[in-house]
């Protein structure tokens, strides 16, 4: 037995490398990887690109600080509601009731002030509480009663909207009355100028809200739990996440944000009008989808929604300035939605 055994020979000739996959680092796969790790990148690129194209076509009329901030003002409400929608969609849910919660909250703020004679600050607080409560009902039915989010929010949408019309008697409270008797209701409509740019408080609220939510989602336990619940609720539950509580808190926060959107809405249109905000649910979902947040949950970033909302704003204003029929806006937004989901699917391949 002087010869080294075959086993030993095998050992000395063994490969030192460990198991690995073949990485073909082509340019395309690098791009794919970059996009995968930064979900807000695609909408940002589309946004910058569309601003450049419209700027080139329209010149200073479009490429001015006035027009740029006008776009922000126009998308602020959809964007705020979109932030609420993003949270819900990250949990693999959907909230169809966002617009209805918004308009009901604004009507409560107005009617409590003018019909019940409450101080505006109290009426606003009531509006915020009602919005949060409707969100709680959504969350409770989804997490505890285990009904599908689509069904629950479809129902709550109609209930909230009907309540809005029944309670308000379809009456509009005029801007002039609010201005003289309860200017606090129009707080978010106030503006200041910075150079040629006009910022309303509503726009500032929108931007701050997005930044805060982006931080919270990325750097707090609650935020990571929201992603975990959306990605795989069973795994999240096994690893100790109280998924029910997370879900309920997400829908409550969504309701609260929508109620704030209602307050911002009063600032924007001056009056309290029960007919506003009818399409906010669809518009917010549009912003979320174009912003690259996956409807299947757990993937995407709120910054993406921010850019998504802005893309819609840029297209709308740009096309209108070019004199295009309003139908073209819808057509292009529709194409954008499909393109966004297609790109999302393509990026996902990198992780498969």
């Amino acid at each position, binding site marked *: 037995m002087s010869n080294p055994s075959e086993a030993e020979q095998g050992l000395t000739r063994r490969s030192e490398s460990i198991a690995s996959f073949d990485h073909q680092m082509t340019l395309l796969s690098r791009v794919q990887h970059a996009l995968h790790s930064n979900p807000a990148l695609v909408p940002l690129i589309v946004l910058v690109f569309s601003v450049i194209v419209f700027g080139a076509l329209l010149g200073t009329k479009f490429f001015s600080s006035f027009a740029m901030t006008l776009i922000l003002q126009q998308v602020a409400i959809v964007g705020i509601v979109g932030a609420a929608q993003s949270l819900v969609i990250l949990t693999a849910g959907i909230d169809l009731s966002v617009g209805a919660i918004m308009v009901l909250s604004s009507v409560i703020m107005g009617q409590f002030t003018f019909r019940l004679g409450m101080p505006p600050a109290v009426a606003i607080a009531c509006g915020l509480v009602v919005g949060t409560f409707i969100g709680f009902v959504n969350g409770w039915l989804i997490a505890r009663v285990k009904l599908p989010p689509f069904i629950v929010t479809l129902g709550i949408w109609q209930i909230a909207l009907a309540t809005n019309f029944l309670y308000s008697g379809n009456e509009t409270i005029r801007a002039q009355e609010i201005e003289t008797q309860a200017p606090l209701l129009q707080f978010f409509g106030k503006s200041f100028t910075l150079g040629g740019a006009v910022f309303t408080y509503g726009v500032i609220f929108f931007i701050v809200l997005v930044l805060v939510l982006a931080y919270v989602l990325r750097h707090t336990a609650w935020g990571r739990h929201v992603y975990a619940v959306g990605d795989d609720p069973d795994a999240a539950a096994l690893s100790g996440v109280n998924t029910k509580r997370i879900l309920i808190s997400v829908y409550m926060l969504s309701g609260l944000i929508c109620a704030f959107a209602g307050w911002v809405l009063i600032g924007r249109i001056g009056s309290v009008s029960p007919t506003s905000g009818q399409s906010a649910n669809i518009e917010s979902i549009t912003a979320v989808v174009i912003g690259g947040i996956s409807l299947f949950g757990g993937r995407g970033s709120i910054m993406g929604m921010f850019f998504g909302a802005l893309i819609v704003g840029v297209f709308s204003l740009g096309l*209108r300035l070019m004199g295009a029929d309003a139908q073209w806006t819808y057509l292009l937004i529709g194409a954008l939605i499909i393109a966004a989901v297609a790109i999302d699917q393509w990026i996902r391949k990198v992780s498969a």
Partner: protein
Amino acid sequence: MKKLLLGTALCLAAMTPAAMAQDVSACLITKADTNPFFVKMKEGAEAKAAELGVTLKSYAGKIDGDHETQVAAIETCIADGAKGILITASDTSAIVQSVQQARDAGLVVIALDTPLTPIDAADATFATDNFLAGELIGKWAAAKMGAEAANAKIAMLDLAVSQPSVDVLRDQGFLTGFGIDVADPNKWGDETDPRIVGHDVTAGNEEGGRKAMENLLAKDPMINLVYTINEPSAAGAYEALKSIGRENDVTIVSVDGGCPGVANVKDGVIGATSQQYPLQMAALGVEAIKAWADSGAKPEPTPGKDFFDTGVKLVTDTPADGVESIDSAEGTNLCWG
């Protein structure tokens, strides 16, 4: 339980004689319960029905544009044995087939506010002359601007991309009244007059009015005359003008005559508005159904028009020469909503 049943039976028994006496029943189908215009229309119809002893059942779409619910309402009315239907159609072309079904079943169908396409698809139309409503504010604006009218920069805030008939009629009436060639009178947006800065759509509410106004101001910040399809969109447009500090040097005109709108005329937000009378439309409609049930007589249109004109008045506090108008105080007495 027995008590409840007995009570119900007693109630039914008590109701039967009344129901027997009111053997004329009518239906009112509006676009949506979400608009004070239709709320007022319903009130007018209910009051007149109670007066004439007509049983009135009201239906409404869930939202403006909800065509399916209106079709279902027509079918319900036919099945219910109603004598006639008053309808404000959401889709003036698509509803025609269902209306024909009702007429074949022996019901009289009266279009309220919005003419069907074609207009003779209904037995009669009781409506505001929307073209005239537009023409009045157009004439008023032209008279108020005087020689400056030649340099006007006009924003047109319309209702919807689908261009419903009331939208087209008011828009084209305004341009005609102002003295602008409307090209094809059956559609808006094909005019070539350089005084028109652009058209945009508002969905008839404040939010849409503000956004549309902002879009057109971005196109030309020196707009000095704004046509709006209705008063909520005018209120939204005013907010947009206010945000750039131009609310005092732009004239806004509108159509409707709702109470918040007339109050806005008083406050100087809206320069002039054409007031329509929904209560009147509905009350006359119920009378017509009663007459049809009693004698088989169908309502006649206003001479020279293909519909029954329920009237329109211009409301303004700055009357212009050559345009008849009432002031906001009188407008407040006649307003709805």
